[in-house]
Each structure stands twice: as C-alpha cells, then as structure tokens.
C-alpha cells in the first residue's frame, strides 16, 4: 500500500448557497410527451427510462401532448385548478395566522399543490391515502371542510384531534386520509400493510402513500418497498422530491448519483419520475399506477419532481441556506400557472375567470377563517382537558382515571 491515494471524505453541497447565483441549466427539463406510456403489466426493468427521465404532459405552450395525456375533460381540470388555488389561499392565510400568534405552527405546500390535488381527483376517496404533512391539497380537493382543518390548526374547542396534535396533523378517515404522523416515513410501510389487508380481504380498494425526498433515507422507506415487492401489495408509493429537507438539499438523501424513482427498480417495482408541477402528468401517472394496483399487478413507485417554494415551516427561514430566487427560477414553473395556461389554450378558461376564482377562494378561506376563529384560536378555546386522558386506550384504565382525578378534571 505504498504511495496509495489518500482517501478523502466527500460531503455533498448544493450548487448554490445564499449569495451565489442560481443556475438550474443542468436541469433543463426534457420535452413534454417524449416518454411512452407502457402497458400496466410492464416489467420493472422496462420502466428504466421512466424512472430516470421525466414524464411531462404540458408543454411550454400549455398544450397537453404525448401518450401520458390523461385526456381529462375541462370540468375536472377546473376542479383541479380550483383545488390548487384554494390550497394556496388556505396556506397563505394560515401562515399569516401563525405569524399573528393565532397558532403555534404551520406548514405550506406552495409550488407543490399539483402533487396532492391531482392525486385526490384521480383516486376515489375510499382508497386510503397515507400522507405527509404536505398533502393538505388532498383534503381540500376533496372538499373537506376548511373550518375543520382550521379548528385543528387552532386546537380549539371543535378540533377534531381534540387538542392533542400539533397543527397540520389532520386525520380524516371518511376522506381516505390517514392520520398524519410527525415521525417521518413511518406511514410508508403502514400503507403497504393497509394495501395487503385490502388484498387479503379480496377488496378492490388500494392504498397510496407519500414521503419526502429527505425522508426516503429512513429504514421505513426500504421496508415499504420490500414488503410491497414481496407481497405485490396494491399501493402507490409516492416520493415528493421537492429538492429540500429543511436545510438539507436532496444530495444528502443520495440524489446525486441516481433518481429517487430509480430506487424502485431494484425491488422489481415499475417506477415513474413525473413532472410534479404538471397537474396532468401527476394525474396520468397516478391513474396508471392505480390501474396496475387494481389489476393485482402490485405496487408502483412515483417520484414527483418539484420544488418547495415555501419555507419548510413557520419555524424555518430558508434564506439562511439557499438563494431566495431559487423558487422563481425553478425550471418546472408553477403548477397553478401551468394548468391555467392549458385551460386557456383549450379555450376553457380566461384571465378574467381566473381572477374571479382567485378572489373567490380567498373569500372562501376568509369566511372559514372567521367561522373557526369565532370558535377560538390557540389558547382562546380548546377541548375539555379531560380529553388529555382519553383515547390513550380504548377504555380508560384505572391509572389514567386516577391521574385525571389528581389533575382535578
């Protein structure tokens, strides 16, 4: 070992930090419509190009092109547009409310609305979604009452979570929306278990799961893919690659040398990489994966390539670790703008209508806000303190009863 190379530790770093110029040119997105839409019985290996490329439907002119065009009628698209706009308006208000001290915490999904909203409309609500905290768009697209979301965020007397959870940890079984966990990645293998149960019972319902790019590093991610592969579970395994995990860029999740979608291939799971800011592409990929699952062909991995335009949460200030102008320069654009352009190009929408809708969703959020705030913001009203001791177990055991009595509630 004489004269051997000295080893050195490689620590990845993003292209740009605050103060550096932003250059996304190496990411120039491939043209829309370029990739074929394989048969749902495809072998994983034959989705190699889909796992490394990028499925896109909307081109720069706003036209829907190629084999992945889901050929949705304008009604559905307007519903999707509305859901995304309402989600953004909701996020904006709640972020402001946190800043005003009306709640302790909030998380936006700005720039990523298509990921959740398209899936919500592509799947029936008796399927079960295992979301992360950034799929609020799914609830909103399915018309879950905004007031109820707010009641939870305010931990007020009407909070469906009974004041027990930090904001944005919704639960909505009736809307096919699993209780959000604060522990990253845990929901991914749980979704596989739910899907296995559905298969076990000879049901027709499938599961869908979400995970962030950063969270894919957890062991749970791997166990989910392993179980999904072994038992051919009817589940859609979605990775939302929004480039950032708090202050850590995707290189710390191993994105430097491969794509997240490509992980799936090693498990024999057909895998797609999708333009996550393209409502139509997300819709189409979700539909394809759902068809596969329902045909007993097993799981699909989908990477949604997008960008977290917002801070991680209200506790975060991204200008400390990334250039502020990254979001604007993001080459895949804004999902709302892109769908709007498509609808206008199809003659199904107009600037005026858009403006009106924008006003309408803001108004809708404001009205819900007023209603919820009337019940109370954080600390103003809350569920009975007794609720602290309920639901730890189905029936309250003696020691919790005694502790409740000790507290005098």
């Amino acid at each position, binding site marked *: 070992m004489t004269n051997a190379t000295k080893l050195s530790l490689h620590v990845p770093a993003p292209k740009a930090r605050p103060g550096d110029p932003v250059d996304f040119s190496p990411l120039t997105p491939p043209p829309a419509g370029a990739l074929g839409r394989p048969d749902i019985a495809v072998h994983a290996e034959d989705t190699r190009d889909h796992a490394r490329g990028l499925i896109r439907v909307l081109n720069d002119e706003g036209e829907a092109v190629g084999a992945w065009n889901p050929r949705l009628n304008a009604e559905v698209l307007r519903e999707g547009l509305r859901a995304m706009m309402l989600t953004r308006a909701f996020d904006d208000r709640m972020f402001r409310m946190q800043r005003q001290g009306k709640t302790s915490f909030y998380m936006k999904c700005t720039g990523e609305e298509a990921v959740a909203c398209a899936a919500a409309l592509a799947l029936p609500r008796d399927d079960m979604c295992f979301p992360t905290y950034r799929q609020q768009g799914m609830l909103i697209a399915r018309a879950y009452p905004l007031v109820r979301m707010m009641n939870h965020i305010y931990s007020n007397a009407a909070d469906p979570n009974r004041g027990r959870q930090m904001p944005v940890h919704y639960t909505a079984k009736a809307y096919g929306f699993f*209780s959000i966990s604060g522990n990253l990645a845990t929901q991914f*293998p749980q979704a596989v278990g739910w899907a296995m*149960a559905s298969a076990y019972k000879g049901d027709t319902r499938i*599961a869908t799961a979400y995970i962030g790019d950063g969270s894919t590093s957890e062991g749970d991610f791997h166990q989910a893919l392993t179980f999904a592969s072994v038992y051919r579970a009817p589940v859609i395994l979605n990775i939302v690659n929004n480039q950032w995990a708090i202050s850590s860029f995707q290189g710390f999740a191993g994105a430097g040398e491969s794509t997240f979608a490509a992980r799936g291939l090693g498990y024999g799971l057909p895998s797609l990489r999708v333009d996550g800011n393209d409502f139509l592409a997300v819709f189409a990929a979700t539909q394809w994966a759902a068809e596969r699952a329902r045909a007993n062909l097993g799981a699909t991995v989908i990477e949604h390539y997008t960008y977290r335009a917002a801070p991680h949460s209200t506790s975060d200030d991204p200008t400390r670790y990334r250039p502020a102008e990254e979001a604007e320069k993001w080459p895949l654009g804004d999902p709302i703008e892109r769908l709007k352009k498509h609808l206008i190009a199809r003659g199904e929408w107009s600037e005026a209508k858009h403006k009106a809708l924008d006003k309408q969703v803001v108004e809708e959020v404001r009205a819900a806000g007023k209603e919820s705030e009337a019940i109370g913001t954080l600390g103003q009203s809350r569920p009975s303190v007794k609720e602290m001791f309920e639901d730890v177990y189905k029936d309250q055991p003696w020691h919790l009863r005694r502790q409740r009595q000790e507290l005098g509630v």
Partner: protein
Amino acid sequence: MVQALNSALDVMLARDPDVLIFGEDVGYFGGVFRVTDGLQKKHGLTRCFDAPIAEGGIVAAAIGMGAYGLRPVVEIQFADYIYPAYDQLVSEAARLRYRSAGDFFAPLTVRTPYGGGIFGGQTHSQSPEALFTHVAGLKTVVPSNPHDAKGLLIAAIEDDDPVMFFEPKRLYNGPFDGWHDKPVEPWSKHPASDVPEGHYVVPLGKAAIARAGADVTILAYGTMVHVALAAAAHAEVDAEVIDLRTLVPLDLESIVASVEKTGRCVIVHEATRTSGFGAELAALVQEHCFYALEAPIARVAGWDTPYPHAFEWEYFPGPKRVADALRAVMAA
C-alpha cells in the same frame, strides 16, 4: 405452553377471518419455537405466512392492517430483535388512536419469546418488557403457564389496543423453577397445563395469586413466578406469590391488598435491574403501602450487564438469590 399458544392462534384463526399471522419463519416452517406449527397448512397461505427479516416493516404492516380493520398477530422471533420495530411500536402503534382521536386504531398483537436460560447469550435472552411499560398506549402481558398463555393471548388478540405479548421461552416446554441442574419437568405434570379446548379468555389487567401466604409478598411474572415459588419453598418462608400476568394495566389492587397484609415485599424479574419494571413496582408499593411496610422492598433482578453466555446461571436471578432476599427481608 407452545401447544396452548398454538391453540389460541388456531381458535382465533378459525373464529375470526380478520385475524392473520405473519412473522419471520412462522409460515410453512411453523416458527423457530414451533408456536405456529401447522397453522398455515390448516388455515391457508394468506392466514399465516413468512415475512421479510425486517421487524420494523412487520410491525408497520400490522399497523396498516389494523387500521384497515384486521387483527394482525405478528411474531418477533426473539424479543432481542424487537428494537428495529421500536419506533413503529412507540411512535405509531401506541399513539394512533390518541393522535387521531379515535379515527384510526391498530389492534395488533406482538408475540415475542423473551428471557434467558437457554444458553442464548446476550442476543437470545433479553427481557425488554420495561421498555414497553414506559410507553402510554401499549398494553404489556406476560403469561406464566399454559392455561393463562392461551386465555391471555386470546384476550390480547380480541383487545382493541396494541398488546405486547411476551412469552417466557424458558417455559415453552416446562415449568422451569430456576434449579437449572435439576431435571426439567414437563408441563403435563403441572396443574396449570390443563388447557380447555376452544375459546376462553383470561382478562387483561388481572393478577393471579400463585400461592397464598402470610409473611411476605413476592411480585413476579413469567418464568420468575416459578422461581419465586421455588425460592419460597427453599427459604421456608410463607410467601404470597403474585403472578402479575399483565404489567400494563397493572392490577395494583391485588398487590396492595397483599402487601398490606404481609408488610413485606420482594420483587423479582429477569431483566436488568436499573429501570426495570421492578422499579415501578417498588415505587408503587412504597407509595401505597408505606405505613404497612416493615422492611425495605427488595428487588432481585438480572445484573446491569448484557446476558452472558458462560455465566448464564450467575446472571439469572435463581431461587437461591431470591431465597436470600426473602430471608433478608424477613430478618429486617
């Protein structure tokens, strides 16, 4: 005890189509301790099947199944290998009902053989029950004989909360009392080996008096119930031996009643001493029976070391050590 557990699973598979079993090697092979022997053949490939070696994945899948509406029973091959599933148990199974305000819950049962005495060394001998009793939302059960094992396991499966079910592996094939150089008795000679056929329940949260006595109360569970009985005989002390059966929720009432009567208390477990479940028991007993106590509560437990292969019987809190503690407590 293996047959009793197998019977509990068999009964539940037959009664309830929502019960299914999975875990490492539990399917075709029937489990390394044979507890699931024959169940796949009898009930079908999807009712009792093998799983990837991924304890976290096994528990996570069971949580998902539970949320769907099933009653999964999973096996962790040795309690020593439960730690990769710790996050899913503590952060997820235990909290799902609470965090979702009852919207979702996961009634899974986690079966796992625990304890030493089989020359398993540090990775086949551990007793990690205290790591679960600290976790609100989990129930923790430890049977000490075939009759209870079957009835408690059925109760655990039917329970709507997640239940940790620790099986004392040293008791699988006989009522081991800690005299390790004496020949092993089979269960067939033991009264508690009389296991009714079919469905019956031993309720969670209720202790049993394994031996009534007047002078000192011994709190024990699992293998240590038999060791406690042997120790009482050895020390010739009229001990009341309480078999806790369920650690959470605990049958404090029975404990307090006994210690109020005897005025003395010895706690026995195989787990390492510091922060073992014996600590909680001692804290509770002194809290509730302070004025009745005539001597300090003694704990006899595994040492605060890993479980060593060659010193297994010096590690194991056997009848001699328990008897010494009994004598000391009686003399105090």
